[in-house]
């Protein structure tokens, strides 16, 4: 009797699931149909689905959730291109949440692959990318990562491309800037993750080569409740070692927390602050307290961007229509989707990985987008050697990120 109820119960569960999935499919199918019918007049349509794996939840979700409108915008742009070229290819995003976890990212990649998708945009973190690398290598699954720039993944011949410029050139540019600003001793304060570790390591190399000195390095762990004590530690060292500046690398959530604590610390108000682009665009940093602090410490940030790029401003403006605000890497996400889509168009909608890989390399050579030139090096990583300098200040009474200059080939130009 017990066994019968068991099996019956399991049958009920299984059938509910099945029914749910069937209903889901039908709804999705018809929804897909209707959207296609309203936007398209040609009867025969080929759907081409791009897999997108971003961290919609989890510790880095505040950044990544802003990428979803970017993806939708890029897909719309691709469809416009496809239509204007008279092709019957319609792109569709397939967005899955990877929670910022390596295991979830791998699961997403496998789900995409089994659904016949051959190109994936994402995941955001280098650690996630590493967890997929073996799968990508074995199955020739193409990944365009918008936000990973760790040199440990600069491996030639694989199926992983990255549209975020390498941290090496950027850290060198910041070192040049620091020397020019008469900064000779620095405390490096950064989050313990791959991007910031790499940045600080390369910064140290180039800074010490130019005669500066990293007097101390403080690393704090990501995903904590609060960073007050870490700021206290930093302040203690800043008081005893009296560095010329503090190099800070962190993201929006921890950055806002740390900067608001730092704003109350006299020892930290007395030094300069150099920051990295990882919290550029984060809205939680834009509070009067932090702006005042940034002014006080003459904060300078760096971010990879071409010297003049009206496409970026246009991108920011258009993104508003999609309900998004630009955050860290959003222009790279746009470029990643565009390069993927253009490569697909170039092959005429192929799913052959080698053909697609070749097309991506070729498309990238001539692609120019909000993140600048798309050219990829032999490791499949974006080449970019121009950087903008930015700070936080009040513009017409609202706190904003403001560009204050640029660096190109060791030439530093400060506006105003």
């Amino acid at each position, binding site marked *: 009797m017990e066994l019968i109820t068991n099996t019956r119960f399991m049958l009920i569960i299984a059938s509910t699931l099945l029914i749910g999935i069937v209903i889901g499919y039908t709804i999705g199918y018809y929804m897909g149909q209707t959207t296609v019918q309203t936007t398209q007049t040609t009867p025969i349509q080929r759907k081409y689905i791009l897999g997108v794996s971003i961290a*919609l*939840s*989890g*510790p880095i*979700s*505040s950044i990544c*959730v*802003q990428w979803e409108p970017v993806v939708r915008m890029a897909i719309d742009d691709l469809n416009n291109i496809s239509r204007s070229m008279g092709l019957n290819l319609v792109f569709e995003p397939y967005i899955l949440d990877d929670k910022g976890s390596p295991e979830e990212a791998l699961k997403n990649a496998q789900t995409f692959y089994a659904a016949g998708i051959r190109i994936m945009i994402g995941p955001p973190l280098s650690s996630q990318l590493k967890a997929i690398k073996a799968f990508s290598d074995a199955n020739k699954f193409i990944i365009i990562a918008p936000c990973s720039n760790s040199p440990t993944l600069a491996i030639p011949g694989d199926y992983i491309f990255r549209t975020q410029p390498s941290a090496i050139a950027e850290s060198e540019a910041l070192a040049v800037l620091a020397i020019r600003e008469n900064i000779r001793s620095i405390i490096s304060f950064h989050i*313990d993750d791959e991007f910031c570790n790499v940045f600080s390591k390369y910064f140290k190399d180039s800074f010490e080569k130019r005669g500066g000195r990293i007097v101390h390095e*403080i*690393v*704090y*762990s990501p*995903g*904590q*409740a*609060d960073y*007050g*004590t*870490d*700021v*206290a*530690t930093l*302040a*203690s*060292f800043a*008081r005893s070692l009296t560095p010329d500046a503090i190099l800070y690398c962190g993201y*929006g*959530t*921890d*950055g*806002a*927390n*740390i*900067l*608001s*604590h730092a704003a*109350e*610390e006299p*020892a930290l108000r007395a030094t300069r602050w150099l920051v990295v682009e990882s919290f550029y665009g*984060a*809205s*939680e*940093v*834009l*509070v009067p307290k*932090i702006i005042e602090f940034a002014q006080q410490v003459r904060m300078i940030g760096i971010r990879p961007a071409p010297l003049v790029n009206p496409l970026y401003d246009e991108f920011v403006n258009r993104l508003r229509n999609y*309900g998004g*605000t630009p955050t860290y890497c959003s222009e790279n996400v746009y470029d990643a989707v565009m390069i993927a889509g253009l490569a697909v168009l170039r092959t005429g909608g192929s799913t052959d990985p080698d053909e697609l890989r070749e097309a991506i390399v070729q498309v990238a050579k001539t692609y120019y987008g909000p993140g600048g030139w798309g050219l990829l090096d032999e490791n499949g990583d974006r080449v970019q050697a121009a950087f903008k300098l930015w700070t936080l200040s009040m513009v017409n009474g609202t706190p904003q990120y403001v560009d204050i200059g640029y660096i190109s080939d060791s030439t530093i130009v400060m506006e105003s």
Partner: protein
Amino acid sequence: MEIARALICSYVFSWIYILSSIPLTLSYRTTKVFNFAHPVFITYGAYVAIFLNEFLNKNTPLFIAALFSFTTGGLIGVLNYLLIIRPLHQRGASPNVHMIATMGAWFVYQYALYIICQVLMKLRGASFLSYPSVEYVDISYIQRAIGLNTPQYIVTSTTLGLVVILSLYVLLNKTMLGFAMRGIADNQILATLCGIPRDKLMALTWFLTGGITALSGILWVNFSGSTTPEIGLHVVVINFAAAFIGGLSSLLVTALASAALALTENIVFLFLSYHLGLQPTIRLAIVFGVVFTILVIRPPLGAGGGLPYRFRTRIGRKVAGP
């Protein structure tokens, strides 16, 4: 060494931890349920304050935020009780089943919050997934009026913390309701036989648990520079540690343990990192190390059970000769 900041941090954190771990112990003691949905109360409490702040155009008074948070947290607690805990209890489920069911509830609430945030984001254009700190206007006003220049969160946490702890003390020790709750905690069957309405009392316990825990959320948004839907999880780890050190039964030890953990996390750690050059990355490991040591060296008495300690101290002792 910047002792001042570490002191302030541990002070505010003590209140946040106390307000969130005392209800955890209280709920376990009364209902014998490991509530894995506990972080939900903190997170929702914080987000109620954030949404209020956004929709009142950054003019949120503390008492309004407290009222709304308390109600929301309390309602979530009661909802959990009615939909999950009571049916499971009636079917005689084991504590582990309660634990996993509340974990399922946690998934639901957590992602419901993400959805709410995203919908509101589309409506307001502000990012809710990471939100800057909230200033309470009434506290600012009082501070200006009496010329108190300390950071606002010290005032807020002291006021709210003292009010809550005192009312909880009065409720538990001076009213019939408190006696009934403690009766239920000591012996459910006996208490039911004595005519204590078990169901109502349980619902009330969950209401209080949810409400008080949610209040720690509104302290949090006042203190921290950024709030995300994940904060409940960060705080709850310490809550569980404190509750376990308190033997899952003693509210006083739980409160002391919360304060001690806040101190360890901040002052002890600052000392270690400044003098021994330890990196902040091992901060959490130190906290867990302390918890591990306390649990192993002085196992708490209480709901834990297990083999009495003396049976394990003399393992391997030789049989004495004739």
